[in-house]
């Protein structure tokens, strides 16, 4: 039994099957990539895991806990953190404050407790230190006190990754961490993902369109198309899979390839 078991889940919006009978198993300590064309159901799958959507059928078991039916905050408490395809930060708060929010689940006492029994500064010091560790890890010293709204997009994505890390997750869900980045930023993020994986031992599930990155850093890949899983395996296996080639290049991909092989007519 894997660290995360997704067992034949189905999710429908009205008549549309967003996710259809998808199963997958992620081992502890893996970097697992989910790929597929647009609208294949990748983000829906991630949303099912993180509790944003509730699949109508199937089960999801994470480290012995059943996830289906739990609220997102309950899922987060189990040690699952995520980033979003479009940056979802508090734009008018500083980087530090955004990261401190990631620590929310680890705060022992809430707002009303503090009002009634007084504010505990030691607790905040501990969390502030954890946040600084994340800042150090992702090399964000320069932006520490900047407002998120004033930062370039590539940095905002890094801050979001930082907020997820601040939760100290055991499973990290990344929804297109490299989208909209230039080559240098992409390389930086790829290096950070590897560092997170090696140094912190975090299991990572990642949706990504940049195939070079996916093939480079992930150990196992699952391919979705129209809500169904069409392939799963190592990067090499997935690359040579005919169903995957059809999904990406179209029905008549072989004829396309043949045309490419023939010399061009003068």
């Amino acid at each position, binding site marked *: 039994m894997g660290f995360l078991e997704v067992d034949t889940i189905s999710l429908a919006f009205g008549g549309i099957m967003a996710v259809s009978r998808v199963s997958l198993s992620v081992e502890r300590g893996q970097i697992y990539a989910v790929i597929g064309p647009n609208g294949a159901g990748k983000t829906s799958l991630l949303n099912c895991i993180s509790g944003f959507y509730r699949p109508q059928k199937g089960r999801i078991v994470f480290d012995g806990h059943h996830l289906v039916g739990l609220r997102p905050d309950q899922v987060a408490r189990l040690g699952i953190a995520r980033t979003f395809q479009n940056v979802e930060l508090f734009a008018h708060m500083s980087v530090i404050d955004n990261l401190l929010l990631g620590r929310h689940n680890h705060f022992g006492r809430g707002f009303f407790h503090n009002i009634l029994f007084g504010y505990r500064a030691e607790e905040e010091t501990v969390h502030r230190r954890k946040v600084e560790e994340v800042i150090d890890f992702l090399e964000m*010293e320069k932006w520490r006190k900047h407002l998120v709204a004033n930062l370039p997009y590539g940095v905002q994505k890094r801050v979001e990754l930082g907020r997820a890390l601040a939760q100290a997750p055991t499973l990290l869900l990344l929804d297109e961490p490299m989208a909209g980045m230039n080559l240098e930023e992409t390389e930086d993020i790829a290096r950070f993902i*590897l560092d997170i994986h090696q140094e912190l031992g975090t299991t990572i599930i990642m949706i990504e369109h940049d195939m070079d990155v996916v093939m480079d850093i992930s150990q196992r890949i699952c391919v979705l198309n129209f809500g169904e899983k069409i392939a799963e395996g190592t990067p090499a296996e997935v690359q040579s899979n005919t169903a995957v080639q059809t999904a990406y290049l179209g029905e008549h991909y072989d004829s396309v390839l043949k045309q490419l092989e023939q010399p061009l007519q003068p």
Partner: protein
Amino acid sequence: MSRLDTIPHLFLDKVRKYGDRVALREKEYGVWQDISFNEYYRHVRHFCLGLVELDLRRGDHVSIFGENEPEWLYADLAIQSAGAVAVGIYPTNPAKEAKYVIGHSDSRFVVCADQEQLDKILEVKADLPLIEKMIVVDMKGLRRYTDPDIMSFADVEEIGRKVDNGDPDRYERLVERIEPSDVAIMVYTSGTTGPPKGAMISHQNVVSMVKNALQVIPQYETDEIVSYLPLCHVAERMMSVFLPLNSGATVNFAESVETVVQDMREILPTFYLAVPRIWEKMMAGITIKMKDASWLKRTTMAWAMPIGRRMAEARLARRTPPAALKLGYLLARLLLFRHLKKELGLLRARIAISGAAPIAPEVLFFFMSLGVPVVEGWGMTEETGIGCMNRLDDVKLGYVGQPIPNVEVKIAEDGEILLRCDHVFVGYWKDPAATASTVVDGWLHTGDVGELDEHGRLKITDRKKEIIITAGGKNIAPSEIENRLKCSPYVNEAVVIGDRRPYLVALIQIEYENVAKWAQEKGLAYTTFKSLAQLPEVNELILSEVDEANKDFAQVEKVKKFRLLEKELDHDDDELTATLKLRRKTVYKKFGDIIDEMYKSKRG
């Protein structure tokens, strides 16, 4: 009576004197962490014993490759304590140049800061057969590296700790056998011409340099220093290692290269060194910021700056300023200068030094007007970094000041500056021919051309090799004109050309950030550095800046034509040295067509 004639002995003396006082400060996880002299010492001692256990021998060479951090200093002093020679490498050096230094110095060990530097060494390790161990400070990201020669800094310290426990006098014995004449460090000169040369500097050189320098630029145990320039450069080594070893001042390490400005504001150093490029940048920063400040701020600036200038003039002329001016200045300081200085992190600066390259007098004057006690000094790697220095109470703009005590300066027949003192270096490593032609009868031939005034203050004209002799037979110092051009906030780099040509022309690299801002305000469209430099409006802008600069020069010294560079000059492309000095030959060759074209076309 304990010895004080080598660097490790100086260090031990300070450790005994200061013990738990703060020696170094490093920002970790957003908080400044104190490191006492005792802790500093413990790291040095253990790292030294660890290296010796790994078979480092007296006279061996060890390279240090990384950004400024306490471990750089631990390694530096540990290597020297073992009687070995510490060789610094610029952290910005690409693999090829690092390979040259490591290979040429016969280094057996390399201390690298992190994965980035280690990767560069692994890239060229096959060509460096002498390397036995690569010692890495920050092991982040190295878990999958399999090279058996990689070790962590902490591991070496741990080995040293065990040795220390078994043989507590070992370190003292090592230090005791060091002779003052032993080579302590090797500094590779950046070499604007030819490959870098390894200048060997002995313990005695450093000890006497420190003694002489402190008489002119006194440093106290209460001083705060921010270490941010590359430590392999002799000037920063002097600032961060040698001077504090004598004074007990606290050295603060910037968190990263990008946060220096913020760190400066937090520390507010009292003793500060910057290179001209940084002074120019700070000045451009203020000029640009004031342009889009509110009406009130601009008016205050327009009122305060002339007062500051008059005050600086009075001080330079050593006149007592009139009472009205004093009062005005007090107000200007309260309303504006204090805030500007705080912004720059120079509020508490007791002495601010400009060195390592010639600076335009206009820039120095600007900071004097703000009330920053800035003085220009001059020195060379070959004489341990400091030769002449303006005194705080005797500043002459355009001059680098009188020689420091125990330094003799004279001008040779051909105008070359010659220098003689106790801290003239030992020689170039593996290059006796170059040593023999540099130090003749005890006089160091500096390669700079200059003159002395009636009080013995030195004025540097230019590098001897770079003096331009125009077709009309006129001798011109290009750096003077270039520095004047660089005073403009829109000019980043200027290269003046004209050797054996009828008139002077220039290649100019725009200051991308400021020109980009200017273009945005004007509503001009551009995408990259190249497209920005190609805009006719930008050309017009720079033309007006060049015309402005030309006003300060005689007819033959005026720049008649210029072209904007369409790429930024870069260390990686060999156009600049690691200290960002111009490599003229490469630039001439690379942009030869543009230069020729300027002399062919009529006017433009």
